[in-house]
């Protein structure tokens, strides 16, 4: 076991995967010689050479379109979009092409690609470096969408994503790259070195897609979260003293509804968290599913704590971010219901 940040874990996943399968290629903006703006691909070009890890032109449609062509050939590309906010020029290639090629060719052509992208806020990135577009992927039939919340899962889930024979969107919560984040921006930064999930095997392993994790068992209320919000949920539970069960969804599509259903039926209460905007956010889907499956077990209306329906602001970042105070207030309200 080694101590790794999420960046090191993501790097390690790609390194190990590339060593196991020479059909895996890595490319994107600044990922080659430099190793990526967040350093997630550092050392890959040095180890595997420029034909396995290389810089691409600044062209997201090109990155994803080329990856689709490579997958049609038989390669297994793992590409980086520098920020999730930059994926929109490639959204046509993702939603209309990558997601549908297996379907429309009756399985003759497949798109075994992984598209990594840093997601979410918390780093003063403003409206073009802080977005959480996961709902836009979950809404597309044929894409899998994964969001880890810690280094151990990041490595195992990324290895599983790369091995998966369908296109996988791998969203990396950039606020968690260097350490867990309790949601209090004004407190000292903590590092993964002291966190149990910062312990990561150096060798190969996978964490299966489509399986949630119960990060904190509890009896009073179920919190559904993913990415950065998992840590905010833990903080809110601790600060309010409410015995919440925190479920880290890890994969939002396919969704582990079984784990959600079992928990909510037991606690009778549910709070849903995400950083993304509220209207038509993934929380709306979770809310519907909980209502459909657990209605007669609910003792209070389901609550959602999300980003506001505004562009992600710069100076007002901490007024926008759904921190422990808002999550705590929602927990209390749900407990009263």
């Amino acid at each position: 076991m080694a101590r790794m940040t999420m960046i090191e874990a993501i790097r390690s996943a790609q390194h190990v995967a590339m060593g196991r399968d020479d059909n895996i290629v890595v490319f994107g903006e600044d990922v080659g010689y430099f190793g990526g703006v967040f350093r997630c691909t550092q050392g890959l070009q040095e180890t595997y050479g420029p034909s396995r890890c290389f810089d691409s032109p600044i062209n997201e449609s090109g990155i994803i379109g080329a990856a689709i062509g490579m997958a049609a050939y038989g390669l297994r590309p793992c590409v980086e979009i520098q920020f999730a906010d930059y994926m929109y020029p490639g959204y046509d290639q993702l939603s209309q092409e990558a997601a549908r090629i297996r379907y429309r060719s009756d399985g003759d052509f497949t798109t075994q690609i992984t598209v990594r992208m840093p997601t979410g806020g918390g780093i003063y990135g403003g409206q073009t470096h802080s977005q959480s577009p996961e709902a836009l992927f979950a809404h597309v039939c044929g894409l899998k969408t994964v969001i880890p919340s810690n280094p151990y899962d990041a490595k195992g889930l990324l290895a599983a994503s790369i091995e998966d024979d369908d296109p996988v969107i791998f969203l990396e919560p950039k606020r968690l790259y260097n350490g867990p984040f309790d949601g209090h921006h004004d407190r000292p930064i903590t590092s993964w070195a002291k966190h149990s999930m910062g312990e990561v095997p150096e060798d190969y392993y996978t964490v299966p897609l489509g399986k949630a994790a119960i990060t904190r068992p509890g009896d009073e209320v179920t919190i559904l979260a993913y990415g950065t919000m998992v840590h905010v949920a833990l903080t809110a539970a601790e600060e309010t003293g409410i015995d919440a069960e925190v479920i880290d969804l890890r994969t939002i599509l396919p969704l582990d509804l079984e784990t959600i259903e079992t928990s909510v039926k037991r606690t009778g209460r549910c709070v849903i968290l995400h950083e993304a905007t509220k209207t038509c956010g993934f929380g709306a889907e979770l809310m519907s599913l909980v209502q459909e499956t657990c209605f007669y077990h609910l003792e209070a209306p389901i609550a959602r704590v999300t980003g506001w329906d505004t562009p992600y602001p710069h100076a007002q970042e901490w007024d926008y971010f759904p921190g422990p105070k808002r999550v705590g207030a929602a927990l209390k309200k749900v407990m009263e219901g």
Partner: protein
Amino acid sequence: MTKPLKFYVPEPEFRPGDQPDFSGLKLPEAGAVARPKVNVKAENIRDLAYTIIRVMTREGEAVGDWAGALSDDEALVGLKNMIKVRAYDKRMQMAQRQGKTSFYVQCLGEEAIACAFQQALEKGDMNFPTYRQQGLLLSSGYPVLDMMNQVYSNSEDPLRGRQLPIMYSSKEYGFFSISGNLATQFIQAVGWAMASAIKGDTKIAAGWIGDGSTAESDFHSAMVFASTYRAPVVLNIVNNQWAISTFQGIARGGAATFAARGHGFGIPALRVDGNDFLAVYAVSKWAIERARKGYGPTLIEHVTYRAGAHSTSDDPAVYRPRKESEEWPLGDPIERLKTYLIKKGAWSEERHTQAEAEIEAEIVALQKEAEKNGTLASGQKPSPREMFEDVFKETPPHLRKQRQEAGL
């Protein structure tokens, strides 16, 4: 006083009611354009993006550097393939009119481009086509019956009813799954070619796009990636003058030609008479050899004319003169190759008439067989259960649940 600015919107030369006149169109003589070596640098053949490479004279003689690429037997194979494409189109177009399918796209007048190009490829190479390259599949030996089964979306539809009638797909026959979203395939072709080079393979890719779709950003993506990584790919623009009702000037803008777009990327660009089978074959062969030898990408603009409607959903008479197609100076590709072969003594009017009748009879017989499997209007259809398959490799729980809900 500064004069107020004026907004400019280009218009085609002729609209319905006008007498089309192409006498102003400067066509180089057949044989006038020299054939460069395949390792030529783009900057040394800039003129080839502004001219038109032609091999056959009006009288049916093959002349110049680009002549002689095909034997008579090979040219005859091409001629028969073109006749097959036209006969297939005619029958399927009619089937749509009879309500047996929802939609059809013919390639009338453009048969030489796909047929000649496919003949220049090798087994294992991969096309990333548009919906007007049925000639690639029909020239590759792909079963016509399977194509018809797909057009009819019947019980034997190879894509199980999920895809539009004419959007074929076959890895075995080097034909990537067609998308209705334009231009996406152009950069995918480059990606496939990059993969072939990464693996040290010898196979090449070919991308296809129409004049109108060159305006899409994926055209630019493809050109940048092809240029940067010197991908072994042939990028084909089929300039058939019309994008549904929009003339090619709307996509081309102020550039003299579409081929000239290659220059900004350092990609050799050639313009060819797309209705001259021998010229298309020779230019394609040149570009394919160039890619296979590792000299990188080539951009080809095939100059042709869409003699039919865009699809079964539009009537060209409302946006262009009825006679424009007849006045178009490049002639009919089948007639031209026929004239050449007759002139060489390898073919005759009688044999041509006989071949057309035989091929049509073959297509009609296959059509009857396909209709036994049903059409969109009647008979057997793919199972509704197919709708839920292949969204993912393994059907996830939420889809299994929805399938149960649908009673399937």
